[in-house]
């Protein structure tokens, strides 16, 4: 795994310039389209107002009609953007293929990236992070081996339907961030859930209870549930807890872990990742650094825990 500065230089050199030109083309196109659409809307409004002056009885219908068409356009657009993230057309697609692919390969050449693939809902469900969801979306799959450990990471968003008193339904985001699956070399004969401190403990099975650990600082950030306290203590050693806290403090990013059988599931509440922004540089330092910090934290925390588990005799 390489350092961020080396990765950034490689990305800049290989893909930065070409994509920057595409970004500028995309901006111009977006501005021109916005101007044309604005002019059309203004003209339609002018016609509608004139029509309403001539036939006052039709004023209400005209206004309602314009509102309905506008809402329909926005609803349609938001449906599209949920299932196809980063709806900035060609630029985002190129950004992922050129910048992010180079970025991931530069991070570790054993990793492969595909922006169009993701983790399946059934794989996500096995992590037992949520009690259930109504809508699921995943993309930006990274998979490969770190050493001898098989790993799969993807951006995931889950939503649930909420209904208000009037029966109106809306979607509410449950989780949006990076989700990872790591295959362990050993079978751990217990379930261990490491959750955000004072969270509602979704997904915890009934046979598990909260375990108090011998690190006050760790207890402030995380709650641990398990059906076998001894195994949990064997895995969560002092240096594992210290390293987990270090990554938490560095990124100020909440993350949670589930260990069941021979699988480790980890998720970071990072929000949207790997999305291009036509209004910022194609190789925006801060955006890439954020991606690097999250990915690096996921790999390092997973590696620390898997190394401990793989050395133990269960």
């Amino acid at each position, binding site marked *: 795994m390489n350092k961020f500065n080396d990765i950034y230089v490689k990305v800049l050199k290989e893909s930065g310039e070409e994509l920057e030109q595409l970004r500028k083309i995309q901006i111009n196109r977006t501005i021109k389209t916005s101007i044309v659409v604005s002019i059309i809307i203004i003209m339609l409004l002018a016609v509608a107002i004139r029509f309403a002056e001539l036939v006052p009885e039709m004023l209400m219908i005209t206004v309602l009609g314009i509102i309905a068409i506008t809402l329909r356009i926005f609803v349609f657009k938001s449906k599209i953007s949920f299932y196809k993230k980063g709806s900035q057309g060609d630029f985002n697609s190129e950004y992922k293929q050129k910048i992010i692919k180079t970025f991931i390969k530069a991070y570790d050449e054993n990793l492969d990236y595909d922006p169009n693939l993701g983790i399946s809902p059934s794989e996500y469900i096995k992590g037992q992070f949520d009690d259930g969801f109504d809508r699921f979306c995943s993309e930006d799959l990274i998979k490969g081996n770190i050493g001898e450990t098989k790993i799969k990471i993807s951006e995931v968003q889950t939503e649930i339907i909420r209904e208000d008193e009037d029966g109106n339904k809306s979607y509410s985001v449950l989780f949006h961030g990076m989700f990872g699956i790591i295959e362990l070399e050993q079978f751990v004969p217990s379930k261990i859930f490491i959750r955000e401190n004072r969270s509602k403990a979704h997904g915890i099975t009934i046979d598990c209870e909260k*375990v*108090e650990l*011998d690190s006050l600082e760790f207890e402030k950030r995380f709650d641990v549930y398990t059906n076998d306290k*001894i195994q949990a*203590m*064997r895995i969560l050693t002092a240096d594992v807890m210290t390293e987990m806290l270090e990554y938490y403090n560095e990124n100020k990013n909440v993350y949670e872990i589930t260990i069941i059988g021979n699988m480790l599931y980890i998720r970071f509440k990072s929000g949207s990742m790997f999305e291009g922004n036509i209004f910022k540089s194609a190789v925006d330092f801060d955006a890439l650094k954020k991606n690097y910090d999250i990915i690096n934290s996921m790999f390092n925390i997973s590696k620390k825990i898997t190394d401990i588990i793989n050395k*133990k*005799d*269960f």
Partner: protein
Amino acid sequence: MIYYLVIVLILIIAYIIRQYNTIVRMSKAINQARSAIDVYLTQRFDLIPNLIECVKGYMEYEKETFVKITEMRTQYLNTKDLKEGANLNNECNKILLNAEQYPELKASEHFLNLQKNLSRMEDQLQAARRIYNVEVTQYNTKINVIPTNIIAKYIGAQEAELFKAEDEAQDNVNVQL
């Protein structure tokens, strides 16, 4: 007025009962954690006869040392004293450490299996001790904070002793390599 006084009195009594029950539960949790340590120590010490049998042909240990270890084991099984258990565990670790100097012993499959099992049990034992210390710390804190300390004093709750690894660690440093 009396009505409010009665409600306050009921709340106070309910609070006292709750705190008392919490102290009792925590005390039981300590006993459970101590019992877990005992289980792992006993499992480990059950392998001592096998260990002695395995190493005595290879290692230059005096017969008296093996007799001493066997006696310590019998003593622990009778008393279940954790300190005695810790001392005996330390002696086992010394044997395993000294075995590193004997290549023929390290090549023995029987010894390797024993070593693997003992190592796993030691790891479980460390985890059990950590759990025990957490339970003791929580209990000691509970019976010392205000106002629970008043209830604790009234029922005669005493502070529990933490498991200390200092003596064991010191002895390990003195082992000759």
